[in-house]
Each structure stands twice: as structure tokens, then as C-alpha cells.
């Protein structure tokens, strides 16, 4: 491969450019008019403007991106994460234009992108799924039978749902009728569709995901897990590897199950399978992400494997020379997402001009960021400023190192999530490794606001 076009922006575009540089592959950046001053545009060998600011007019314009790929004569397109990375149609367009899409096949993207089909596929591969009804249930009699079959507590969820609306947790049969009707009414009001389905309610689950790599010759391996339980409104804030909760036995079992599912569907390139794990260690398939993820760096730091480089080599047709026993997880890595958000004002977005920008450093610190002093964060895209990763021989060392690094990090001119992450690094509940997906909500309730919304003292 001589040249790759990166169909993305921000820090992931930079990440892909770095991997290409190391492989001696030329790079083409595409950018919107709002991203002219962006670092990925400056560092790529070539750059093509593909539209005005808004994503729908630029980064989501499949036609313009393919056109840009054609006029710059690239061999492949790396889609990054978000944007077009999980659009089967785009992968098909690339194939039709004779451009290699760095990722799995369009059929696999399509299959795993449909949540219902993904569940069925996982179930067929004997991967435990969250027990639930196959489809919507509209009469109460049938519903309560299903709920009893599934086992309380259950959650009644709107089929057309989102944003936590049209959901009711039911703890026992006595409360069921009332909650069922209540959920339907709310769903009808919020989405104009009263249809609901029922799932087992996993109490205080951990979100644990397994990283996979599959080559184009049928080999699939896993690179261990990441624990991403610290989330705010279903958005990940802190990720770590290994998970403080998994035992070696559970890790081996979940790893095997992940690989088996990937093999069943003929998965190629990088991907991640997400599980919910309850307090007893029972795990359930949640979904599969058929792309590289934001938090991939955490796995890179504990396995010493460059995932983006591997993606490119796999797309070149190279065989994966690693086997499962070659994958070793050493030490502990933690990532904090630094977003341009104001914790004091309910995490309202804080775009604008960055004044002084100084990144932390030293042994065991990695910063993946496209920002610099004077950079103007546009209001049009996501709020990510940087990913800060700390690595240590033990979890405690990684935690303390992260705390130290967050204290050094200077980003003037905008508000960021630095103080929240820093406070969490010292929080006993987090330090003990007990975080579930409820953790952050609890943390905000019991921790005085001054401790997580003030600028860090340096």
C-alpha cells in the first residue's frame, strides 16, 4: 500500500497518520472548511477539502470522500471511529471504486450493526445474551408470563426508545402490571410508539469489552479486555485494562467466547465485543463494534501491540503472525477522556480557543490529542480534546500516575473534564476497583461539587 486516505478528523486522524508514517505509507487528509487549521490537515502529505463545517455536508458525504480518494489515487481508506466507520453502504462504495476499506466486510458490518440480528447471531454462537423477549409484547398477560420466564428484576423498554425514556424497572410480579402500562404510556407519549419489549435487568453491571483482531486468512485472536464502567449518560469517561473485576478464569472464558463469535461471522480487522457483567460474574453479550475504538490505546499499552498498524497490515493482506498464547497483558493502563465540557454547568459543551496548552509527560504517560496552543475547537463536532493514558506496573501505580499527570495538564481558555477525572483517581470507591455503570452517578451525588468542578491546582 502506498497511500491511505483518512476519512475522519481530530485525534483519530492523527493516530492513523502516525501509523502510516511509521509504515512509510503516504497520507491524505480530508477536511471540512471548519477544520482548515486542524493538525491532521497540516501533518498529512496531502489534504482535500470536502465541504463546509457541518458533518452532514462534509465528513458524512460518502460521495465526496470517495471522489477525494480517487483524485489522490489512494489504495485504501481508513474510516476511524464514528462518521462512516460502521456504514456498510460506504464500505460497499469503496469496494465498487476499487479502494480497500480498512475494516471488516460490508456484510459483517451490516449484520452486527443491526442490534436484533447481532443478538441472534451471538445467541446462535452460544454467547450468553441478556435474556429477553424476541420482539415487542403488547398484552399484559403475555408480558407477565415473559417476565416470569426471564426472571425478576426485569426492565420494560420502548422498542423505539432512547435517552432513558419509556423504560421501567420492575422488581417483582406484584408491581408488574402498573409498571408495564406506565412504560407503554410514556413510550407512546415520547416516541408515538407504545411498543415495548422486556429484558432482564442486570443490576449494577460492569461494562467489559474484548478487543479482537482478525486477519483475512481466518485467524482471530483477542487482546484482552477493557473495563469501561465509568460512564456518564452512557458516554465512557474512564477506561482501563485489565478489568479490576475479572478473574483469570473469567477472562479466559469471555476471551474464548469472543473469538468464537468473531470466527463464526468471519470477522476481519479490528473489532470489539461489549459485554455486561453482573456482580456474580455472569456475562451477557451487549453489542459488537466493527471498527477501531476511542479507547484502543489502553489495550496497546498493556499488550504492546500497535492496533492501528495491525489494521493497516491486515488490510494489506498480511497474515497475523501472532497466536493467542503470544498475547500477554503486562501492567495496568488507565485512560481519561479529556472533553471540552464544563463540569460545573452540567457538562455543557465548552468550545472556543485554547490558550496555553501544556501536556503532561514522563514515564508511563501517553497523550493522544490533536490540540495545541491557539487551536480553535469548532462547535460542530464531538467535544474530545485529548485522551490521557497512564501506564504502571500495578493498578495503584497507574492511578497515582494519572493523578499526577492530570495535575500537570494545562488547557487554558476552555473548560474540561480534567478536574472530574482527577477527583475520581483519588476516590476510594474507584480505587478499590468497585466501579459499575452506576458509579459516576453515585460519585456526583456524594462528592462535593468543589472537588470536581474547580480547575486543578498546578
Amino acid at each position, binding site marked *: 500500500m502506498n497511500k491511505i486516505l483518512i476519512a475522519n478528523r481530530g485525534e483519530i486522524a492523527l493516530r492513523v497518520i502516525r501509523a502510516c508514517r511509521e509504515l512509510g505509507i503516504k497520507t491524505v487528509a480530508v477536511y471540512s472548511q471548519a477544520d482548515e487549521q486542524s493538525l491532521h490537515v497540516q501533518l498529512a502529505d*496531502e489534504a482535500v477539502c*470536502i465541504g463546509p463545517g457541518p458533518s452532514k455536508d462534509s465528513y458524512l458525504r460518502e460521495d465526496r470522500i*470517495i471522489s477525494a480518494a480517487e483524485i*489522490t489515487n489512494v489504495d485504501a481508506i481508513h474510516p476511524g471511529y464514528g462518521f462512516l466507520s460502521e456504514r456498510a453502504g460506504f464500505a460497499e462504495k469503496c469496494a465498487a471504486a476499487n479502494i480497500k476499506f480498512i475494516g471488516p466486510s460490508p456484510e459483517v458490518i451490516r449484520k452486527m450493526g443491526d442490534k436484533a440480528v447481532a443478538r441472534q447471531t451471538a445467541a446462535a454462537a452460544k454467547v450468553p445474551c441478556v435474556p429477553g423477549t424476541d420482539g415487542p409484547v403488547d398484552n399484559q398477560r403475555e408480558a407477565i408470563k415473559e417476565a416470569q420466564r426471564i426472571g425478576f428484576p426485569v426492565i420494560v423498554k420502548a422498542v423505539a426508545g432512547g435517552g432513558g425514556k419509556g423504560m421501567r424497572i420492575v422488581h417483582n410480579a406484584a408491581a408488574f402490571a402498573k409498571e408495564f402500562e406506565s412504560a407503554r404510556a410514556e413510550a407512546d407519549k415520547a416516541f408515538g410508539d407504545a411498543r415495548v419489549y422486556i429484558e432482564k435487568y442486570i443490576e449494577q453491571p460492569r461494562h467489559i469489552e474484548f478487543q479482537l483482531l482478525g486477519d483475512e486468512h481466518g485467524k482471530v485472536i483477542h487482546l484482552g479486555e477493557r473495563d469501561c464502567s465509568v460512564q456518564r449518560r452512557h458516554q465512557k469517561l474512564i477506561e482501563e485494562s485489565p478489568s479490576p473485576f475479572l478473574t483469570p478464569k473469567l477472562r479466559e472464558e469471555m476471551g474464548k467466547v469472543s473469538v468464537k463469535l468473531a470466527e463464526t461471522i468471519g470477522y476481519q480487522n479490528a473489532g470489539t465485543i461489549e459485554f455486561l457483567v453482573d456482580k456474580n460474574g455472569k456475562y451477557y453479550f451487549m453489542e459488537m463494534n466493527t471498527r477501531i475504538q476511542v479507547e484502543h490505546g489502553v489495550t496497546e499499552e498493556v499488550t504492546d501491540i500497535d492496533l492501528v498498524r495491525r489494521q493497516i497490515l491486515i488490510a494489506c493482506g498480511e497474515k497475523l503472525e501472532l497466536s493467542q498464547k503470544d498475547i500477554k497483558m503486562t501492567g495496568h493502563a488507565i485512560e481519561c477522556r479529556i472533553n471540552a465540557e464544563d463540569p460545573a454547568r452540567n457538562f455543557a459543551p465548552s468550545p472556543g480557543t485554547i490558550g496555553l496548552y501544556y501536556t503532561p509527560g514522563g514515564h508511563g504517560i501517553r497523550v493522544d490529542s490533536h490540540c495545541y496552543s491557539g487551536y480553535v475547537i469548532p462547535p460542530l463536532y464531538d467535544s474530545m480534546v485529548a485522551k490521557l493514558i497512564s501506564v504502571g506496573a500495578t493498578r495503584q501505580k497507574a492511578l497515582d500516575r494519572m493523578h499526577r499527570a492530570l495535575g500537570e495538564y494545562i488547557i487554558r481558555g476552555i473548560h474540561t473534564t480534567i478536574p472530574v477525572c482527577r477527583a475520581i483517581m483519588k476516590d476510594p470507591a474507584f480505587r478499590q476497583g468497585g466501579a459499575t455503570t452506576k458509579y459516576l452517578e453515585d460519585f456526583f451525588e456524594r462528592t462535593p461539587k468543589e472537588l470536581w468542578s474547580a480547575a486543578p491546582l498546578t
Partner: protein
Amino acid sequence: MDLIKIKQVVDLMKKSDLSEFEIQDQDFKLRIKRDVPGRAPVAAQAAPLAAAPAPVAPAAPAALAPAAPAAADPSIKVVTSPMVGTYYCTPSPENPPFVTVGSPIKADSVVCIIEAMKVMNEIQSEISGTVVECLVANGTSVEFGQPLFRVKVS
């Protein structure tokens, strides 16, 4: 350096046709750039600390034509590319160009073809007037927003 001195420097610049001015003192560095007809405008900046790297103009890619300078004459408007692709000034190799310098055009006149993904797209001018300059060579690649023609509006 105090505000009064900065204002004096700015006034001096306005009176002349200087577009860029830089001065460094012990712990103060001031750099001012201003919009001069014919040059790309850049925001003014003052840095009391060691100067942060200034935003650089986008790298002019080798394969693509560089952006034309902003027109100073208000009666001159620029037709820009609405897509990414390859620019052709003629309907086909044997035919004469759609427009040349001096051609009168209307808003719905086809001024060129941009080929994108094997489709030949006819590009309409959207400006009425007379073609003053053709900015792109036949067969070169163009990006979104790239200036194609300068047109004197009628």
C-alpha cells in the same frame, strides 16, 4: 508594552500598507497581521508568554491547485467548486470550452464539468456576468470550495 503603544503601532500600520509587524521585548512579544487586499486574512495575536505556535495556512497539496487570492473588487465574484473531483473545461475532448475569458454567462449557464466517481457533473455558474479569469487548468483535481472562475457581475 502598554495599550497606548499597541494602539500607536496599529495606527502606524493602518497608515502604511504594512501587512505584518513583529516586535519583541524582554518578556513581551507582539505580532500583528492585517487583512490587505490580495492577501489571505489572519487574526491578530499578542502573546505575553513565549509565543505559541501560530496557526499555519493549510498545506497546499501537490496534486491540487492552490487557492486564488480573495478579490478586492466588489464587482468580481468567484465561482467555487461545489464538489470534489476532476475539472474539465470542455464538454468533451473535441469540443471547444464551455466558457473563456470574456464569455457572458447567466446564473444557469454551465461553466464546466467536474467528474466525480465516474459521473460527469455539469456545474452551473450561479452568477450572471462576464468571465474575467479561468483559475483551474483542464484535467486537474479540485476540492470543495476551490475557486474556479472570477466573474465580473453584471
